[in-house]
C-alpha cells in the first residue's frame, strides 16, 4: 500500500496498515541546524519521503517569515521580528467599525491561507475591536463575517476545480486553556461559516482537514457537525483524555504532538508521550494520525528521537 493510500484509509476509518506520521520542520529550525538536521531527515525516508540532500534552502524564508514589514492583499500590515517564524499584523485596515461598510475583500486570489476565517476577522479589525464586536454584536460584525466568508467561498470554488481529495485548512480558534469567545457566540457567528465552506467541499467529493491551535474542546462537537473530517488539534491545550472522550472514533485526529514540551522533555518522556497518544487514541479501523512540529529550541537529539519513536509506534495499530 502506498503512503497516500494508507493516509486516506486512516482518515476514512478504513483499516490503514499503519498510523500516518509526519514531522514538520519550521524554517527557523532549518536555519539553525542546517546540514546536521538534513542528516536526520535523510535517515527517515518513512517520514520525509524522497527528500534529497540540498532540496532545501536553509535560509530561504518566504512572505511573512521574512524580516521586516509586508502588506497583504487585504491591506493588513505584517511585521516580523524573528525571521524564520511567522510575523504579526501590526496595522489593521478596519479599526473603525464604520469602515466595515465600504470595505471590499481583495480582487486578487490568495487561496485559503492559515487564518483564513476567524483570524482574518481580527487581522482586519484588530483583536480587541473584534472582541468588542463580539460583545456588543453590532450589525457590522455580521457584515464583516459575510464579506470574508463570501471571499473564502469563491476561493474555495477555485481550489475545488482541481477536485482535490482533501482540502487542508488552518485557523487558530483557541487560547491555551479556553476559547477566546463564548462557545455559544462561536456557534452563532462562526459555525455557519465553517459549515458552508465544509459542505461545499463535500459536495465536490473532497474531505476537509482543519488545523487549529489552542483549546477548542467545547466546539469540537460543532466542528464535527460542520463536517470536518480530519481535525489537527494541539494536544497540550486540549488534553489527550479529553480528545479521546470527545472526538475519538467520530472524526480522524491528526494529533499535534506537544510542541510546548518537546524542548524540555527527556528522550524517554518523548517516547511516553507518543506511546500514550497511540494507546489512547488509536483504533484498529483508523482515525489517528500523528504530527510533530519542531521549533528551533528542540534539541537535535530530541528531533531524532521524535522521528524514531514515531516510526516505532506507527505500527501499534
Amino acid at each position, binding site marked *: 500500500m502506498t503512503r497516500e493510500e494508507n493516509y486516506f484509509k486512516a482518515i476514512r476509518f478504513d483499516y490503514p496498515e499503519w498510523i500516518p506520521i509526519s514531522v514538520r520542520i519550521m524554517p*527557523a529550525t532549518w536555519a539553525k541546524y542546517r546540514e546536521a538536521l538534513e542528516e536526520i531527515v535523510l535517515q527517515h525516508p518513512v517520514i520525509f519521503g524522497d527528500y534529497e540532500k540540498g532540496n532545501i534552502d536553509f535560509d530561504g524564508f518566504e512572505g511573512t517569515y521574512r524580516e521586516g514589514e509586508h502588506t497583504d492583499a487585504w491591506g493588513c500590515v505584517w*511585521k*516580523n*521580528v*524573528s525571521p524564520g*517564524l511567522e*510575523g*504579526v499584523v501590526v496595522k489593521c485596515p478596519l479599526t473603525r467599525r464604520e469602515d466595515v461598510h465600504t470595505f471590499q475583500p481583495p480582487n486578487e486570489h490568495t487561496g485559503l491561507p492559515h487564518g483564513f476565517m476567524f483570524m482574518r476577522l481580527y487581522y482586519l479589525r484588530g*483583536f*480587541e475591536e473584534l*472582541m*468588542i*464586536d*463580539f*460583545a*456588543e454584536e453590532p450589525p457590522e460584525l455580521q457584515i464583516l463575517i459575510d464579506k470574508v466568508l463570501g471571499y473564502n467561498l469563491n476561493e474555495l470554488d477555485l481550489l475545488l476545480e482541481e477536485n482535490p481529495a482533501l482540502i487542508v485548512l488552518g485557523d487558530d480558534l483557541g*487560547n*491555551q*486553556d*479556553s*476559547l*477566546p*469567545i*463564548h462557545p455559544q*457566540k462561536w456557534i452563532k457567528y462562526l459555525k455557519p461559516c465553517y459549515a458552508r465552506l465544509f459542505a461545499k467541499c463535500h459536495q465536490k467529493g473532497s474531505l476537509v482537514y482543519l488545523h487549529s491551535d489552542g483549546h477548542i474542546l467545547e466546539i469540537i462537537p460543532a466542528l464535527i457537525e460542520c463536517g470536518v473530517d480530519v481535525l489537527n488539534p494541539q494536544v497540550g*491545550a486540549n488534553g489527550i483524555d479529553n480528545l479521546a472522550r470527545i472526538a475519538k472514533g467520530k472524526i480522524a485526529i491528526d494529533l499535534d504532538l506537544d*510542541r*510546548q514540551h*518537546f*524542548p*524540555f522533555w527527556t528522550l524517554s518522556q518523548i517516547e511516553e508521550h507518543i506511546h500514550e497518544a497511540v494507546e489512547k487514541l488509536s483504533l484498529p479501523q483508523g482515525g489517528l494520525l500523528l504530527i510533530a512540529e519542531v*521549533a*528551533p*529550541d528542540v534539541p537535535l537529539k530530541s528531533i531524532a528521537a521524535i522521528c524514531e519513536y514515531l516510526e516505532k509506534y506507527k505500527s501499534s495499530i
Partner: protein
Amino acid sequence: MASYSELQQCVISGDKTRVKELTQAFLDNGKLPKEILDEGLIPGMAVVGKKFEACEFFIPEMLLSARALNAGLDLLKPLLEASDVKPIAKVLIGTVQGDIHDIGKNLVSAMLRGGGFEVIDAGVGVSPDQFVELAKETGVDIVGLSALLTTTMTAMKDTVQAFESDGSRNKIKIMIGGAPVTTKYAEEIGADGYARNASAAVEMAKKLIGAR
C-alpha cells in the same frame, strides 16, 4: 442617589455610558475620587476577573468591562493626580525579545489598570536592555514579562539577568506569564511571581507590592 453597587454592576455589564454618568454623579455629589475608585470601579472589575476565571466571561465581556471602567477612570484620573493620590503601583509590561504575541499581554494590562495600577506598555519583542532602560526611565515598581513561545521563554531569564547585572534588580519585582510559562519556571529563573491569566495577574501584582 445611585449606590456604589450600581456602579459596580455597570462595570460588570460593560455599560460605558452609565459608568461615566454615575461616576460624574458621584463627583457632583461631593464623593472623593479615591472612594469612587475603591468602592465602585475596582470592586466591579474584580468581579469581572472572577467571572473570567469561572469561564462565565470570555475575552469580549472582559474587554467591554475594561472599557467601561476606563470611561469612569478618565474622569477620575486628573482629579486623583491633582490631589496627589498615587496609583497602587506602576507596572512596566512587555512581550520579550523574539516574540510578537501581544493579545495576552494587552489583556493583562487592561486588568491591571482595572485593578488600580498604572501600566506602561513596552510593546512586543522587547530586549532585556530595553526593559532595564525603560524600567529606570519610568521608575516602575513591577516589571511584567510575557512569552508565548518556548523559544522565547529564555529571553525572560536573560531579562532577569540584565536587571541583576545592572544592579537594579532589588528595586523592582518581576512577574511573568504566557502559555508555556509555569510557577516552577519563575522560580528557576529568579522571577518573583507567575500568573496564569489576566485576573490572577492582578492578584499577583498586589501580592508582590504587599511583599515589598
